[in-house]
């Protein structure tokens, strides 16, 4: 992996695959992707940058008013020294998204965590498990959903 190799900028790369990326802050890019296209986009991204891309986190948000779950995939592109936030939305009544494990094995614990705390199912990830982190008493509940009633006062 040589440092000298020239890589295309994120704007060029996404133009080539027919998407447009927005620079929200310096070195921070953001774009909306369809959930079905996500593994494909990530695959292309990894190939274009010689695998020097890793997933920082998946921040899942429950927008209860709009009846959607928003998934923020925070990717780090090492050669460009920048952050790319891939946003995708899945409906709240059918929370299913494709898994990234086949293209990026490191996505496994992140997806398992989101599945445990918010109940979004990642199709193709064989490691999803409930309860993953929660105690046994809360095995069937999703604490980070906004309509979860909570434990009450101690």
């Amino acid at each position, binding site marked *: 992996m040589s440092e000298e190799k020239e890589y295309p900028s994120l704007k060029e790369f996404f133009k080539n695959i027919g998407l447009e990326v927005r620079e929200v802050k310096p*070195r921070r890019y953001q774009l909306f992707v369809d959930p079905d296209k996500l593994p494909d986009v990530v695959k292309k991204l990894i190939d274009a940058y010689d695998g020097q891309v*890793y997933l920082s986190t998946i921040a*899942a*948000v429950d927008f209860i008013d709009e009846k959607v779950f928003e998934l923020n995939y925070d990717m780090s592109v*090492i050669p460009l020294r920048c*952050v790319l936030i891939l946003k995708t939305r899945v409906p709240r009544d059918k929370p299913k998204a494709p898994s990234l494990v086949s293209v*990026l094995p490191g996505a496994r*614990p992140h997806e398992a965590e989101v599945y445990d705390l918010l109940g979004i199912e990642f199709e193709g990830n064989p490691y999803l498990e409930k309860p993953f*982190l929660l105690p046994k008493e809360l095995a069937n509940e999703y604490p980070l959903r906004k309509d979860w009633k909570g434990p009450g006062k101690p």
Partner: protein
Amino acid sequence: MSKELKVIEIPVGPQHPALHEPIQLKIWVYGEEVVDVKVVAGFNHRGVEWLAERKTWFQNVFMCSRVCGICNTVHGTTCSQCFEDLGNVEVPPRAKYLRVLVNELERIHSHMIILAIMAEAIGFDSLFMLMMRDRERVMYLKELVTGNRVLADYVTIGGVRRDVSKETCDKILKYIDFIEERMKFYKKIWGEDPIVRKRLVDTGRATASQALSHCFVGPMLRGSGVKSDVRRDYPYAAYDEVPFNVITYREGDSWARMMVRVDEIFESINMVRYVIEHLPSGPILPKVVPRKLPAGEGFSKSEAPRGELVYHAISKGGMKPYRLKIRTPSFTNIHNGAFLIKGAHVADVPVIFTSFDPCIACTERVKIIDAKTGKVRIMPFNKLSKLKKL
């Protein structure tokens, strides 16, 4: 052998002499070889993200500092930066430099403690005692600057909470010189001592491509030869003005990971010196710090002693965040790194696991079934088929 060897399940933890924190490793062994591993956890799940939605912005900075005790300042810094990013709060330059100072002091003490624990894990108790003795000097410096030995609560939204005086700076320089002197000696031990080398070289080896595809961060990634450091790649605080080198080792084994930490201590010492020499004057807090932050999205990442730390906040305005996502470095390192244990000797399990610098409190939730993609180097083929059913 008349009797056939069986695959045996061994639980390691949650209360275990080699692991000081509550995590359970279920390992399956065939003879002396580990054939499968499962990280069972959640023992440390405290519901921090759920609590964060119910606390105000300022309370959140204090709570996020307590996600992890060893790397608390960097948690506080990243949390504050995330909220500053959200509310467009300008941080004065002196506060930026002081953040670098405290973060680097913390990196020195954190790396020293993991080096000491590693020495204990390989049975090198005198090195453990000597390193812990010298580490107390750093703890004293931290107490002098921040007001508490471990949980500093030094950083707040907009800046830092205390200023440093001239005498404090002199004392820091004096103690830092002592620590550098001692670290030169320890580097010789870590690099050349036969006890250390025999135990660490060639255990838990990860190649660069494995490290990247399994999303390793921090010293685990740099130990495999990938040049990635958030301080350089995505500079925060005053790291774009402070010169330093990114340390990489090509070997990718436990020894390389520890050597990355040893060398980073020297870089941190130089950075502390640079910061004290070039400390700008001025206020440490902006005049007005808003108590309410606008709607929007805040993102911040930083280089914790264990790797990249990410905060992602989503706000709908008001006093409290709508969602705060914390991704700690140990979360990916422990979950994804477990495949390195596969194929190792049972006696090497604590060594490999300690070389991850596991911070279970940071992870605040752990549990994984091992990746099947990581190739097992030594495989008892006759048992692998049965193993799948376990």
